[in-house]
């Protein structure tokens, strides 16, 4: 009896310890997010508050300006927002269909041996550091675009779109594939049992049933594309002013603006870079809210 009780108490203690250990670990993540958000917003919102020590700047001019000339005190980022959104949209429009079709191929159609080749390739693609993507873009894509375009340089919106398209593929493929795998076989059997072909089954039953999972993949791809920095910086051209007028125009996405100048910026200039970070952060938060809605929607079903 006494021994049993001792054991019980020991187990209880273990349970409690484990509980706190988990709680502590979870807290690390939450605190990190909160700290980053606070820090970025705190520093980035300073210039818009009257009486700021480093000088102030109009929020409207910041969000609608088409020039970024720190030397002349011009900090407009509208053309960067447009650049980021165009690049992301382009990458999604090109990358999502390729990603979905690849996932369908892997999950439903490919013979086993092809699957054993493609899957590790996709996983490897996900693991390649982004600077390597940048080098690839600079060495292959940019020169190729230079041949096509009338502009003197190949670094352009198109180059960014192509690099980002490749970079979002692993996200879209992996998540779509697991969404497809989660579709119950009973749906496939129901469709095939009616004499529908395999392709008809995939497009009319399997993909619609996997819809919310696929959307989640797309949203994560958007997040990846809009936040990508290193690879984009190498192929974008990064002009100091002007909306892009064609896919061959150089662009300056929000991320690269921060990464290129932060190392030497100070005073108001530095704070305006933080403000750029606030805009980027806001986009990411919106994307995550959308993602939450989508995944919650599918859980309820």
């Amino acid at each position, binding site marked *: 009896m006494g021994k049993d009780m001792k054991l019980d108490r020991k187990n209880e203690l273990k349970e409690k310890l484990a509980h706190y250990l988990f709680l502590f670990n979870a807290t690390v993540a939450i605190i990190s997010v909160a700290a980053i958000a606070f820090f970025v917003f705190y520093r980035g919102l300073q210039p818009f508050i009257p009486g700021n020590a480093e000088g102030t700047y109009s929020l409207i001019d910041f969000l609608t300006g088409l020039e970024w000339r720190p030397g002349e005190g011009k900090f407009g980022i509208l053309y960067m927002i447009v650049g980021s959104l165009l690049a992301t949209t382009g990458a999604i429009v090109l990358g999502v269909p390729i990603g979905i079709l690849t996932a369908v191929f892997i999950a439903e159609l490919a013979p086993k041996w092809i699957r054993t080749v493609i899957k590790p390739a996709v996983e490897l693609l996900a693991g390649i550091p982004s600077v390597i993507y940048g080098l690839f873009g600079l060495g292959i894509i940019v020169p190729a675009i230079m041949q096509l375009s009338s502009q003197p340089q190949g670094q352009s919106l198109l180059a960014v779109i192509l690099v980002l398209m490749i970079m979002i593929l692993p996200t879209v493929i992996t998540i779509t594939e697991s969404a497809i795998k989660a579709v119950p076989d009973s749906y496939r059997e129901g469709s095939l049992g009616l004499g*529908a072909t395999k392709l008809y089954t995939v497009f009319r039953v399997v993909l619609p049933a996997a819809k919310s999972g696929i959307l989640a993949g797309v949203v994560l791809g958007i997040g990846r594309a809009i936040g990508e920095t290193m690879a984009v910086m190498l192929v974008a051209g990064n002009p100091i002013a002007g909306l892009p007028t064609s896919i061959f125009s150089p662009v300056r996405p929000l991320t690269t603006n921060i990464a290129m100048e932060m190392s030497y910026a100070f005073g108001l200039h530095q704070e305006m870079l933080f403000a750029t970070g606030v805009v980027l952060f806001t986009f990411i938060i919106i994307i995550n809210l959308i993602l939450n809605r989508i995944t919650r929607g599918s859980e309820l079903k």
Partner: protein
Amino acid sequence: MVNKFSIKNLDMYYGDFQALINVNMEILDKEITALIGPSGCGKSTFLRTLNRMNDLIEGVRVEGEILLDGENIYKDIDVTKLRTRIGMVFQKPNPFPMSVYDNVAYGPRAHGIKKKAELDEIVEKSLRRAAIWDEVKDRIKKNALSLSGGQQQRICIARALAVDPEVLLMDEPTSALDPISTLKVEDLAEELKKDITIIIVTHNMQQAARISDKTAFFLNGELIEFDETDIIFSVPKDKRTEDYITGRFG
């Protein structure tokens, strides 16, 4: 009467495991054939061999012959054509996550029917044949998953009927249903028999006795006895059949 299915020396393997052993069977047109036997004896396997649903499973091998109206289903008939001629209703109702209408119209659409008027007509006719029209006619645009299990199963039957099959395979179609829904499905089967051949797997002896013309008793992958249902349930020839139907088995 003519033979709808003619099964000769059928062997069926999952990889190394032989699930059906030398099955021979003649199934007549416009009759209900019940398949009975203990769990794991190969009833579903046999049923799924008839519409080549087992083709989807890796490592499956079939030997022997299955003739549908004299044509070899593994050689002479295209598999999508075969599955159009042979409908299937599964143990667990499996309506697609779409409206009742789209569920029933799915098969016809898959076979290229696009005209709305034509689809409307097929949908209504199929739902009526499946004895569920009155229950769902006001919610035909509602998601089929919002219906009860018994209703879902009859939607699945309507969905199968919409492509006008000659044969309907039913794998324990009522095992997930309440007694009233079960009776509805049974009545339905007897009604459908006027036009089509039905093969039904059931664990319910009363059900087999109530609705079937012929009964086949399977055991460990072998067809032990196949005869008129009345005979199987009153004077079975094989001792094992008798043990099984009287519940003295195993």
